[in-house]
């Protein structure tokens, strides 16, 4: 029994949407960061699904490896972004004793 590739795309789109919604709706920076992780992983899933689709395509002679490769890069980059992001959050907390994005509005017109 195999999962149809469309389902994978739909799942990744749903994950991306949930991530986006979380990004818009939550005020806690940590949760916003988690939402972004979710969006990145949605993209990863889409990459893998597409790779599978192209590999299984009629007439394909070799596996389409660019997708999985990209996913690995994304995982690395996600780790880097998390490190930098959390560092900034710590700096914010030290400075303002808050992780609420709504409090971060000193800069505006």
């Amino acid at each position: 029994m195999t999962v149809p590739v469309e389902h994978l795309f739909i799942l990744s789109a749903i994950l991306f949407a949930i991530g986006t919604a979380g990004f818009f709706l939550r005020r806690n920076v940590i949760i916003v960061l988690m939402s972004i992780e979710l969006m990145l992983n949605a993209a990863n899933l889409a990459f893998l699904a597409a790779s599978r689709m192209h590999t299984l395509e009629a007439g394909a002679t070799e596996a389409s490896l660019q997708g999985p490769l990209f996913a690995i890069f994304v995982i690395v980059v996600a780790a880097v972004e998390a490190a930098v992001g959390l560092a900034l959050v710590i700096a914010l907390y030290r400075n303002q004793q808050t992780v609420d994005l709504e409090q971060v509005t000193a800069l505006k017109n």
Partner: protein
Amino acid sequence: MQSPLVPAGDAAHDWLWLIPALPLAASALCGVLHYVEARKRLPKVAHGHGHDQHHGHDTHAHDTHAHDDHGHGHEKVPAGLAGLAPIVAIAAMLVAFGLSLKGFFELRDGTATVLRATSWSWIDTGTFPIDLTMHLDRLSSLMTLVVTGIGTLIFVYASGYMKGDKGYGKFFAYLSLFAFSMLMLVLSSSLIGLFVGWEGVGLCSYLLIGFWYEKGWPADAGQKAFVMNRVGDACFLIGSFLLAKTFLTLDMAMIAANTASMLPEFGPKLFLAGLFLFLGACGKSAQMPLFTWLPDAMAGPTPVSALIHAATMVTAGIYLVVRLNPVFASSPELLQIIGVVGVLTAFIAGSTALVQRDIKKVLAYSTVSQLGYMFVGLSTGAWAAAVFHLVTHAFFKALLFLGAGSVIHGMHEEQDMHKMGGLKKHMPATFVTFMCGAAALSGLPLLSGFFSKDEILAHTFAQGGLYMGIWVLGVATAALTAFYTWRMVALTFYGKERFDAHKVHPHESPIIMTLPLMVLAILSVFGGVLGLPPVFHVAHNLKEWLAPVTAAGDAILAQRGAHEVSHTVEWALLGLGSVIAIVFATMGFKKHVLGTQADEAFATKRSGLHAFLTDAWTIDTKYTHWIVQPVKLLAFVIAVVFDQFAIDGLVNGVASFARGLGERTRRMANGRIASYGLWMGAVAAVLVLVLIWNR
């Protein structure tokens, strides 16, 4: 892409480059002299406290209103090294004038009608290559003679007028830079080269208007001039784009030569291009609706007003139209628009000049009015008549401005004519020359202004139709001109002395200032010989001279039928012009020779009309009201409403929509990061949807 109609550049004429290059070099040198001198004058104090002492007049530096009574607000300072600046600048201008003469004689005696020299490729790839080619034909030759000739006289005058100013060197640096830009403007063969000069003169004008910046308001006036000019410049650029798109070249000679063949196919496009170029010309030549900056520009030193705001820069619009005359000739509607705008400007500005008390304001509105005449001339296809008026106007208006400067100088910076009077005996040389200028401006018979103005009006009369209306307003404006000119003369030089003789001792200006006045006076009186009307049965020198330049436009106009007036009508018109000039000049003089009573009576009896006229038909006020304020408001709305309310509003809107969805959405963020993100996400989604939808 050279057409046989336009000769290629010839290395033999490479010397043409020197004409603009000399003032540029002089400008750089004057700048260095100024800098060295300014360095020397810095007080020797410890660094870090410097800015307190740099300012010799700190006492009133913070109160800008205090200056109006202080004249320039400057202490006189010895020029030192900067004293060399006028010598450098005048020498450069003289040599440039000599070279212009050389070009003039080569054109007159040689077989070529155009001298071209390409020695520098500015951009040689891209969509439209630009090479800066110098193009000296009979029109630009005339313009260079005016710019360098009158320019030299004004430079000489300025060396006396500005003596003792702490920015002496800087002033000549700016003036020379202006001369360079103006010469670039008239010598450039391509629209882009012209635009460089066009922008350059605007920039220099701005720098020079704001020259005495401690006064406070000149800086604002300079800013207004600059921004208004930019509106015109934008239109100019648009017009150039349209022409470039149509003709696939930026060379004006090529465009002019090919217009007739493009006309059947691209008529509407040419109309649009011409309209935008005319709007550009309106900005530079102070026509409706972009004229209000010129009177404000009078805040600059008087030689600047004479050179830039009377004799040269403001005529750039006229020059542009003549240079591209086939484009304008191609559409009768466009010509009518130009005529109506011109005559309305002439009339409105002329009536405004009636009530001004500031002598320079009278001359400023008069300039706007006379420029209107020139556009009327252009609108009838009388290119040569417009250029004729341009040249004579350059003579007599430069003279009048310099004369007014001499008066202001002698009166210790007084510009209000109501505080003058009886200066005839104090400043005889200024008085006599000023009279010559006034007579020429008001169109008294046989002087230069009489012939040039009459020629324009005769052409307008000959056109008939809509142009009859224009003619009537034009004649009315001639009456106004005579009136306000002699009002000015009467108030300034005749009648009782209305100043405090204990405080103000009017004196004649030094010879270095009166000498240019005398030269200009001679030119103003006899300048008419350049273009005597046909009834005198002598050649119209200017018209014949310009024939090769205007041939293309004339040919297009001739297809629609020529308009000529018979000699009888011509005599009648000349007679009418003379009578009107003499009658209204006498009226203006007689009413005001006694003093300010006539003005005061008018101001009290017809206070509404008086205020309306004084404020130039309230056009400027309307600008502020209808354009400046809304733009400011819009900017404010963008900044505050868009960047804050709208963003938060979008988020809040989503929030209230989502509120019904569940308990958790109560905690929806409307912090700014989320709202920025929401905008991004929303527009990205729109992008995606629209693009897919369009497939």
